[in-house]
Each structure stands twice: as C-alpha cells, then as structure tokens.
C-alpha cells in the first residue's frame, strides 16, 4: 500500500492524544473499537490503508507504535474498549516501569538503552508497508519520556530514514503560570533543539492556548485532559483528512508539508480549527460559510498557539497558510473568500517571496454527522511562533542562571562531564528564533549566507 504513515506515541501525553486520534479515525472510517469494519462502512471511497493495515482476519490494525517508560497510561488504553485495536507487539513499556521522572536526561538515556528493542518494532512496522511515506510522532516536550526519549528517537529516525518525512505533534507546556514540572523549561529547550534539527515538520500545540480555547469556545471553566486531547485529535485527524479522503490534490504528506515549509528550519506550524463543538455543549456557531470559516481560522483566539503579533519592533507575519476545508464547498466560494481576506488585509504575509492561502478541499466522513455544513482547519507557518520559544527561553534562562535542579541531569551520561548540551540547545533555539525573526524581513533570502561569508 503506498504512502503509509506510522504513528509513534510517546509518554503519557503522546499516548493520550494518540488514543484520541485513533478513536477519531476509527469513527471517521467506520471501524469498530475491535478493528472490525462496521457493516455500514463497507463501500467507502476512503483510504484506510494510510493509517491502518489489515490483519489476516481482515481486522484493521493501526500503524501505530505505543511507547512509554511507565505502564499507567498504556494500561489504561489496554483496559478501554479499544484494547484489541492495537497490535500487541507494537505496545512497548519499559520493563523497569519507573518512568523518566520528568527528566529529559533520564528519558534520553532510557531511549538510548532501549533503542534496539524500540527500533525492532519500528523497522518491522516500516517493512510492513510497501512505500512508507513518513512518521508521525505525538509527544509532549515538557515531561521526561515524550521529550527525552522522543528526542533520542528523533535523532535516530532521521539517521535511519533520511528520505522519510518526520512530522511531530508536540504539546508545549503552559508558560503563563507556575509549572507542575519544575524542570519543564530545561526539557523544552533540550527537546526543541531536536525538533528543530531532526524533525521535518512540527505542529505546535500550546497547552496555554488549548486551555484558553477550551474555556472560551467550549464554555468550560476547567477543561479536562480528555477535552484538551480531543482538541488535539481534531487537529490531527483534520490535517490528515486529505490523505484519508483523497481528492484532486494534497493526497500525500509531502505535498501538504512542502508547500508550507519553504526552508527546512522554518518548520514549526500553528494550527486552528473551526467550528469546535464538544459532546454536551451546543456550538455557538450556527451558520457556516466558507468565508466565515476562513475568517475565523485567521483570528488569533482560534489558533492553538498563543503568539504575539508584534515583538521587538517587528511585525510578525505568515510564511504560508494551508486551509483544509471540509464539507460541501463550491469552488467559487473559496475564491470569493480569498478576495475578501485579501481586501481586508486579514493576513499579513512575508515580504521576501510569493505566498498565499493555499486551500485544500476535503470530503467529510460520511459516518459522522455534524451540524455544520463546512468546517475548516488551518495549518500555518507564522513567524510569531518565535514569541512562544522566547517565553520558554525566558523561563529557561531564569533557571539556568541559578543552575537550579541541574543535579538531576548531572547524574546521567549526557551531562556527566559538563553542561554543554544545555548551552548547545539554547543556542540552537536562539538560532531558530533569529531565523524566524529574520523571516519577517525582506532580506531573509540572504539570511545565514552573509554570516557565513563574514565568518570566512
């Protein structure tokens, strides 16, 4: 089966959002929690084979690898109705079961130790399909397993599969209040370096923004984890909908990614989805048109990352936008909406190259009824993402100045001799922020090149 995608779920957060993602996919494709095709779904024109394969008995099995260093979350999945969905060989829990203790270094070290076993699974899964297109990694960058082991796996994946795409859905921690994990800024910065260097595309899911959206849009005072995870799975399933319900275009991951990412380092994407509904609340959005949807997608309050539109005397702008519009859409509506957005200057674009709002039209799953005629997902490359990195670095700088909590790191191999890894990572993130800032300027084309000539 061509262009398969393997999903890697790492750590507590990764497995939770992964779980929600598969739930959503099963519902959209008419697959029961046991992996059986529902009788009503036998004649679909959807492509299940990108994310699933069929066992000998025709069961659908997700191309998914579940990894964790502690058993709690995966055990939970294995007690849910979906316990028979996954290939049990693909579920891997570290034998000592002690977790990474929210320590990046611990996670990284464990990842190193267990890599042989983990890559046995990944290699087997990769050989399973006939032309693997890439990997999708779900994790959080704040904890220990998702960040540390995730970083380790990213490095190795890139080495082992240099021509395959590596996309991550990375949950960024809350930055506006006291963190529940004190070393969270360390973990984040260390992981960001790997995301910048070893991933091809990172969809940033900012917990701060997710919470805000859940409270504002869904009218929840204290959103639960499950509800936040549902938001994430909505984004994940939405952004893969053109792969699963193919139309004229954007039917592979590369075509989605390559149009969004002009230069390899600017690959951190923000996302938005509208209209959002939850199970027990009625949406406040009653009528949807393409223009409404496209306009809402550009509103900062709907974007799942909190970014500043201006900082340090520069105006942030979009590098690229891809809107995936689902539902019955008349192509001329799209055009009218684009014209309107252009007239009203609702989106500011880069000054150094051609850019526009690319639109991908996607079918809706016939098995899920929604009240809305049209729904939309935005994936965008926005230079404002640097403000998020900035905030993380702020917290990091405060901690590292005091060398707070570094003892836990020093105990592990990578930091035994010195703390260079910290500085390297901070520098890499700084480079990333600089590049994003440079991308707001007209001379971005020469960014980096002039510096190297100066250095020479």
């Amino acid at each position, binding site marked *: *089966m*061509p*262009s398969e995608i393997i999903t890697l779920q790492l750590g507590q957060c990764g497995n939770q959002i992964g779980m929600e993602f598969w739930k959503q996919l099963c519902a959209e494709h008419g697959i029961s929690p046991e992996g059986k095709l529902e009788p009503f779904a036998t*004649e679909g*024109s959807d*492509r299940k*084979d990108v994310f699933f394969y069929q066992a000998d008995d025709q069961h659908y099995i997700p191309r998914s690898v579940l990894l964790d260093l502690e058993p709690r979350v995966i055990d939970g999945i294995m007690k849910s109705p979906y316990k028979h969905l996954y290939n049990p060989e693909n579920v891997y829990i570290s034998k000592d079961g002690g977790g990474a203790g929210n320590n990046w270094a611990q996670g990284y070290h464990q990842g190193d130790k267990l890599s042989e076993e983990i890559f046995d699974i990944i290699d087997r899964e990769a050989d399973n399909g*006939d*032309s693997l297109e890439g990997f999708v990694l779900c994790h959080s960058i704040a904890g220990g397993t998702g960040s540390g082991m995730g970083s380790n796996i990213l490095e190795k994946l*890139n080495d082992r599969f*240099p*021509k395959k*795409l590596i996309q991550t859905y990375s949950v960024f921690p809350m930055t506006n209040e006291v963190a529940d994990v004190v070393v969270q800024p360390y973990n984040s910065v260390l992981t960001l370096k790997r995301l910048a*260097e070893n991933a*091809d595309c990172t969809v940033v899911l900012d917990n701060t923004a997710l919470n805000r959206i859940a409270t504002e849009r869904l009218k929840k005072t204290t959103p639960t984890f499950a509800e936040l995870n549902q938001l994430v799975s909505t984004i994940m399933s939405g952004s893969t909908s053109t792969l699963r319900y*193919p*139309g*004229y*275009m*954007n*039917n*592979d991951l*590369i*075509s989605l*990614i*390559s*149009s969004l990412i*002009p*230069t*390899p*380092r600017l690959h951190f994407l923000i996302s938005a989805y509208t209209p959002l509904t939850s199970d027990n609340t009625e949406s406040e959005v009653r009528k949807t048109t393409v223009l409404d949807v496209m306009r809402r997608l550009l509103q900062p309050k709907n974007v799942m990352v909190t970014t500043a539109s201006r900082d340090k005397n520069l105006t942030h702008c979009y590098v690229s936008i891809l809107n995936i519009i689902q539902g019955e859409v*008349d*192509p*001329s509506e*799209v*055009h009218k909406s*684009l*014209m309107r957005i*252009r007239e009203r200057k609702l989106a500011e*674009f*880069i*000054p*150094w*190259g*051609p*850019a*526009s*709002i*690319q*639109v991908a*039209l996607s079918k809706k799953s016939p098995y899920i009824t929604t009240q809305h005629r049209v729904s939309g997902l935005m994936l965008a490359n926005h230079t404002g993402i640097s403000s998020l990195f900035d905030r993380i670095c702020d917290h990091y700088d405060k901690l590292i100045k005091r060398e707070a909590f570094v003892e836990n790191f020093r105990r592990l191999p990578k930091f035994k001799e010195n703390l260079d890894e910290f500085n390297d990572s901070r520098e890499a993130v700084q480079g990333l922020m600089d*590049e994003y800032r440079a991308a707001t300027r007209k001379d*971005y*084309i020469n*960014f*980096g*090149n002039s510096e190297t000539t100066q250095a020479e």
Partner: protein
Amino acid sequence: MALHEALIALQTGCSGLLTLKQDDPYFKKRLPTIPYVHQGELEILDRLTQLGQHYRTLDEYIQNIFKDKKSGLYILSFAFELRSILQTYLNCLKQLEHECLIDTSLTLSHLLISLTDYNLLFPSLVSLINKLQTNGYRGCQILDIIRRYTLDGNIILSSTMKKLLCSCHKIFIKQITSILTRGQIYDEYDEFFIGLNNNINIEAMGMTTPSISRMTSTITSRSHSPDRDKQFNLQMPQQNPTITPGYSQYQLIPDMLPSYIPLQLADKILFIGESWLILKTNDEDNDKNFLSINSIDYDEQNHRVQQQLYALTLSDDFNIFELERIIEYTRIDLSLTLRNLFVDRFHLCNELEQIRGFYLIEHGELFSLFVNRTNQLLLNIKKSTNAIENDINEIFKQCLNDLHLETILTNVDKFKFKLNFSHNDNSTQETSTGCRRLLSRVQGISDNSNNSFDFWSCGWANLSIQYNVKYPMKAFFSENSKQRYNDIFHLLIILRYVQNELNNLWLILKNQHKNSLILHLRNAMSFFINNFQYYIQIDVLEYKYQQLIRSILSSTDFQKIKYLHEVFLSDIQQHSFMLLATAYQSIRNILSICVSFCLTAKQQENNNNFDENILRQFGRDFNDEIRLLFGILGMVQKHNALPHLGVFLTRLDFNRFLTNNNGSFGEF
C-alpha cells in the same frame, strides 16, 4: 397570312418568312421589308417570333432533362412543372388558332395582347434556366435560385415562379420527412443538404449496418401523382437509395443548404436524423428496442408529422415558420427520449464520472502513485513500443488495485494509455531550446556526456489516453471531444509530474539545514505549479464539471446536453489558456524549465555543490517566463475576456509579491 406565320413562329421560333439564325436570339437577319406586311406589324411579328424562340429553348431544355438520367429529382421536378407551364402556353396558342380560324379579321395585335403574360414570363424563365445550366446548379441549390426569381413585383411572374419552387419543395419536404420520421436520407443524387460523412474514422465505420428499409417506397408514393411516380421509378436504379448508417455519419453540406433555411434549423434536422440512428441502431449485443423507453407512439407521431409536412407542400407559399414548428416539435420529443435514454438508461453521469476519473485526474492519489512509479520509465523513453505501453498500463492497473479503486473506476478496460510521439517535430523542439541551453551549460561543467535532453520529446510530454467508447456513448463523445480531453490530460499529467519532481527535490534538500538559493527557487516554482494546478483542477475543472452535471440533470433536451458538454470542453480549454497561444507557450516553457531544474539538481545531489551561476540562470529564465506570462494574462484580464482568470492571478499574487517585484518571483 401574317397570322398564320405568326402562329407558326410562336411555336417554333421561326417561319418561312421570318427565318432566323438559329444561334442568334436577337434576330438581325429578318428580311428588312416584306411588301405585304406593314412595317408596324413586322415589329409585332418580331416580338412574337422572339416569344416562340423562348418557347423552343425551354422545350429543348425540358427534353434534355428528361433524357438525362443524372439530372436529379429537383431538376426533374422543376422540368415537370415547367412542362405544365409550357402546356398552358400551347393551350393558349390552340385557343388563338381557333379564334383566328373563326375570325380572319383578327390582327397581330390581338395575338400580342393575348400572349402578354408569356411575353413577360418566358424571358425570365429562359434567364433562369440559363443560370441553372451555366452554373450547373443542382439539388437544393436550385431552390435558392428559383426563390430569387419569385421575388418579383409582377404577380404573374412571381406566382409562376412560386409554382416552380413549390414543385421543387415537394421533393425537399419529402427528403425532410424521410429524415424526420425515420432518420434516413432519401437522396440518390446527393442533392440534400445533409449527406453521409465519408471521412469518418474506422472505429465508427465498424458499426455501420446498411439496412434496407421497406418503408422507402411507401413514403415516396404517398404524395405523388401516379404519372410522376412512374417517372421516378424509371429513374430509380435497382439499388435502394436509402441508407441507415452508423451514428454521427451524417453531416451538413453547406453548399447545398438553401439560404432561407436557417443553419439552426438545418442543425436540428441533422440532430433528428442522428437521433433516429441512435434509437434504431441495434448493436450486436444490444437488441433492445430503445423506442419503447417512452410511451410515445412513434408510428402515430410520424404519421402526424408526415401529414403536417404534406400540408406544407399544398400551399404555393412555402411556410418556413410552420416547417420550423414541426421540426422543433419533433426535435423536442426525440431529444427528451434520448435524454431519458442516456441519462437514465445509459447513466451518462456515471460515464462522465469515469471520464473525470481518467482524463481529468480526479483521483489525485492514484495519479500521484502512478507518476511515482513510472517516473523514470516515462522520462527515459523516446519512442513508443507496444511493450512499453503495456508496461505502463499494467503499472496503472496495479496502482488502481493497490488503492482499492477498482470499484470506483470501473471502466478501466476502456481506457488505455498511449504514447504518441508523432507530433513531435521541429516546432516543439524550438520551445525547449531554453532549457537545452541550460543543460548544455551544466554538462559543460559537470562533463556529463548525456545527449541534450528535451522534455517535450520524452514520455511524459507525449502520454495520452485512448478511450474506447462503446455504443451508444459514441453519440456523446465524439472523436473531437476525446482529443480535447486528451489535451487537458496532457497538461494535467505534466503538472503532476513536475509537482512530484519538485516535492522529491524538497525531500532531497530537507536535511540541508541551510538557507540557500536553491530552496528559494524550488519554492517559487512549487508555488507557481501548486497554484496553477489548484486553479485548473478546482477553480476551473471542478467548478465547470459540477455546473455541467447540474445542468444535465435538470435539462430535458438531449441536444442541449450535448451542446453543454461542448461548451464545457471549450470552457475548460479556454480557461487553461490552451487557446491563448503565447500564454500557453509560456506555461510550457515554465514547465520545462522546472523539469530541467529538478533533473539538474538531482544530478548534483551527490557532489552537493550546485553551481550558483547555473542556478541563477535557471532562476532568471524562470522569472523571464513568469514575467511574460503575468504580462500576457494581465492584458487579457484587462479586457475581461476570461472571467476566471482573476482567480488565478489573485492566487499567484496574493501577497502582492509579483506586483511589488515587477512580475518576478525573487532575485536570482
């Protein structure tokens, strides 16, 4: 004495006294004076002789027509009517002779007065037959000529001419009746304005089933006087003149179309004829009688149409409005039947869906996979062989299987990929000199001994689809429309190939974390290709296609559906700039620059140092073409010639980068 001379002269054009030179119509050789005839009477005699001369010319003409077996029905009918006019003239002479015998004191003037009408009429008739003879007019052509003579202020003249015209119209109406009621052309002498299309392709000829219709003789006899029928039977050779050919073998013959029959009307008649063919043709494996699909009683209806048309021939004045009404009536009925037949029975929309699946690349994932798998194969071939074509078709089927699309694209057996290298001559080679120049430069540096590469001569640029359309869809998808579909496919598949190459290049470059010129150039190209593809596939194709399907479903008129399909095709061709030669050339150049860029970049992948000068040259060439295209399209846009063009320009220039940078995609 003079009277006697005159009467002879009136019949023969000469008499003992008034010897005329046979070949000189303006008799100069009359004896200057005849003693016993008064000079004034001589003048009258001259005029009477002239009349006789005309009579003889006309009579000879008729005799010749009757002798000539090849003159055709129209001329023959004309001659019959002319003969009856001459008969009245002879009767008139007889009457005069009788009068002269009774009353010897009658003067020549009396003769002249009695024959005034013929004095007017005969010169016109002579001039008419001269015109017919000298120009060799025949069949429906003579209708026009005769009609011109009916437009005369003189009532006698015009009414006689109308009679003549009317007699020819009887044939005309009979031919129309034949095609209107059973779709057959009753036309042995090639006189009708609808004829067989002899240039039809072999494919269509295969289903030609010449059948002999029993009905023919009955139609011809219905409105004939027995005496004429005899004549016709004499003229008719043994073979049956009616033919029932395969579909779309009728064509209009413009030369034969009388100017007072509007082209639209002729088209309708043609359509009705073709419709009958569809309804009556029984394919070998299809013995159903399509006529039963509607509850209309065709025999009764045909009878009515025959009656109405026959009524038309009774009046001297040809009532074109009535003819139009009858034809429109028949057409609407048939068109509805055909619409039901095609849309409900033959599932026209499904067929179009298949067309969209193959020609218009609806299933993007299928063609992406196909492009991926045949990428190198098609790039490297320069000429077509059966083996390669088979390979390509096998790969395609495999792709179809792998994606589980067999249940959706069910007609895969009817569609075959073909490699057509025939039209690949000098004209196309010129277009690629730009990229060749570039490549030779690359080769000069990298010492690559490859022959210069011309994208337009490789497999990708010459891939087409052969669609084996079966009866009855043949009636809908003409050869011409297949060609147009192929033109669009040609563009779409190349776009997809180029896009695939650019994406592959992205994969190659993704691990170089360096901000480099090559990335920006790739982006600019990719931006153009993606937007162009979106514009064509969604803004134009999908939009127009949905429109077409909607109007097909809401229309009850098959002819209109056919027309809408033609409009659909020309619309999409126009909107993909195929009809704007300079713009299309520019697009082709852009495509080949992109391909050369990708191939060169791939070659350089390993040694990892793309020569910056070559790169910049690619960038400049790309920009030049973009600027040219943008300029041309801008001009077109100003004239508002293509309503959808604005969509494309908005996409390309969404952040006004092109506008701000003088129509270029960056500095290279």
